[in-house]
């Protein structure tokens, strides 16, 4: 039963990915203005012959379906192509850019999830009071703060309060671990705030649910310390909605990262994608979007499976 379900899901997954690849490919070719124009610039002596030569060199003169199947057959063999500008393999470019983004999103997630537990517990404890309402309003505000705006305001404040701090840009962890973390702290906070808001509410309602259950009362009656009651029993209850949210949050984080990376000058996937669009770097752009989407789909797929594993009722 479970295996058949798994196979069906995998087939669906393959179909979705194939469709995604076609959409990505077509969408990119539909973007007006081509790579050649950008490379030559608006301010130079551009002749039709020069343009035609460059187009042929990049392979843009072939019919689009030929281009697509050529690309796909290479992708399936593990060759993502060559970046138009740097001439480097696209796979390498993606690898270089994936780490800052992964670090940023993980840090945002850890920050958000880590702070959400105490915040949610507090809200549950203060339930019904003015403090609860205030926290609730605060979480809604946290959910709806535009992260790029928050980033800019933080930079502005920083520049006024502590002009000599170096908290912008990116240094790899391997080069300077402390610098790496301090530089990612601000953007991770900007990105993680909505997650904090979202998760703390989850924790709150899960706690309230759990604290009303019989086994908790039993545990309390047995003299299990309050802290242990909360952490052992009640928090476990929050796991299911938490796992469900992770998929949604991955999508959010990725989208948010695109904008936040732009503000904080972090050379991650968002910068790679926006840059590739701006310069019409087709091989780089289509491979990056395909890979990002693949990652996103796989995360959601795993979440689905986890969900099945945690909560057998869903299988029905």
């Amino acid at each position, binding site marked *: 039963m479970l295996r058949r379900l798994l196979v069906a899901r995998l087939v669906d997954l393959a179909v979705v990915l194939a469709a995604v690849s076609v959409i990505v490919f077509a969408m990119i070719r539909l973007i007006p203005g081509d790579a050649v124009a950008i490379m030559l610039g608006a301010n130079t002596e551009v002749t039709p012959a020069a343009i035609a030569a460059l187009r042929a060199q990049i392979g843009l003169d072939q019919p689009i379906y030929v281009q697509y199947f050529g690309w796909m057959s290479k992708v399936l063999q593990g060759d993502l192509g060559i970046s138009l500008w740097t001439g480097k393999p696209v796979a390498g470019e993606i690898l270089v850019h994936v780490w800052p983004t992964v670090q940023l999103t993980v840090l945002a997630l850890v920050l958000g999830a880590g702070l959400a537990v105490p915040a949610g517990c507090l809200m549950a404890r203060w339930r*019904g009071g003015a403090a609860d309402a205030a926290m609730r309003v605060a979480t809604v505000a946290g959910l709806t*703060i535009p992260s790029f705006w928050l980033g800019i305001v933080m930079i502005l404040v920083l520049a006024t309060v502590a002009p000599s701090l170096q908290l912008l840009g990116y240094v790899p962890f391997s080069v300077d671990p402390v610098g790496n973390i301090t530089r990612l702290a601000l953007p991770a906070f900007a990105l993680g705030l909505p997650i904090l808001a979202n998760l703390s509410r989850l924790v709150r309602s899960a706690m309230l649910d759990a604290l009303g259950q019989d086994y908790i009362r039993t545990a309390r009656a047995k003299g299990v310390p309050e802290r242990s009651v909360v952490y052992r029993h009640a928090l476990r209850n929050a796991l299911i909605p938490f796992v469900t949210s992770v998929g949604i949050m991955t999508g959010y984080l990725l989208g948010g990262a*695109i904008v936040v990376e732009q503000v904080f000058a972090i050379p991650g996937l968002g910068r790679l994608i926006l840059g590739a669009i701006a310069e019409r770097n087709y091989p780089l752009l289509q491979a990056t979007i395909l890979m990002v989407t693949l990652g996103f789909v796989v995360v959601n797929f795993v979440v689905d499976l986890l969900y099945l594993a945690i909560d057998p009722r869903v299988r029905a």
Partner: protein
Amino acid sequence: MRAGQRLLWFAVALVVLQVLVAGFAEWVAPYDPVAQDIMARMKGPTAAHWLGTDQFGRDVLSRIIHGSRTSLFVSALAVGVALVAGGTLGLVAAYYRGWTDRIVMRAMDVLFAFPVMLLAIGVVAVLGPRQETAAVAIAVVYTPIFARLLRGPALVICESDYVTGARAAGATDGRIIFLHVLPNLASVVLVQTSLLLSAAILVEASLSFLGLGTQPPTPSLGLMLSEGRNFLMLAPRPAVFSGVAILLLAFGLNLLGDALRDTLDPRLRGGH
């Protein structure tokens, strides 16, 4: 009155106020939002200009009021289109089941497979950066959300006795869907529409911020923020206040959806 209900009324009041101000922008705003007065550029708050002027000497308050309208209009248009398209697809899938369901929902999966901003950026890149295309992009992104959202509960309702009964009595498919299935989904739709409107405000602002949405000189909150950040250190007001306006719009709608959910959906009332 319970705390939850007070919150609901507060949210309703906030949203209604914002919609009224934005809707009657011509009458509410003290100045023409595109009228330039270059000699009076980047001035601080005065009695004449409460929030000061921007780099063209335009009144920041008037631009924020008109910009709110742009944001609300684009978001409402996008969510409306997504609701109609996604809702129809979800209901059709749930009602007919089988292959129809499979094909429609797989197509939705494909759209859903893209991260929101990525798909929106892609759609705008193809159609060209304009206010309308930003709306289209957001609609495309939200269509699968409504389809999924409505399909689940609709499946349950379609199984229910009164739908089976109506079918047996010879009612047409369209009649059943609109008269029997849809009304039962009203509360889910209401809550989700409100929450997605809030999210759409943010997506629209992000797109405009990246230069992919509303175009100058039309006032737009994301665009004001984007233009204002170029002289943030000289005159922070346009950037800061437009951000606050975005926050307030999204905040009101989100709070509304949240409070509605508490009121309309007893299952989620949880610990109250």
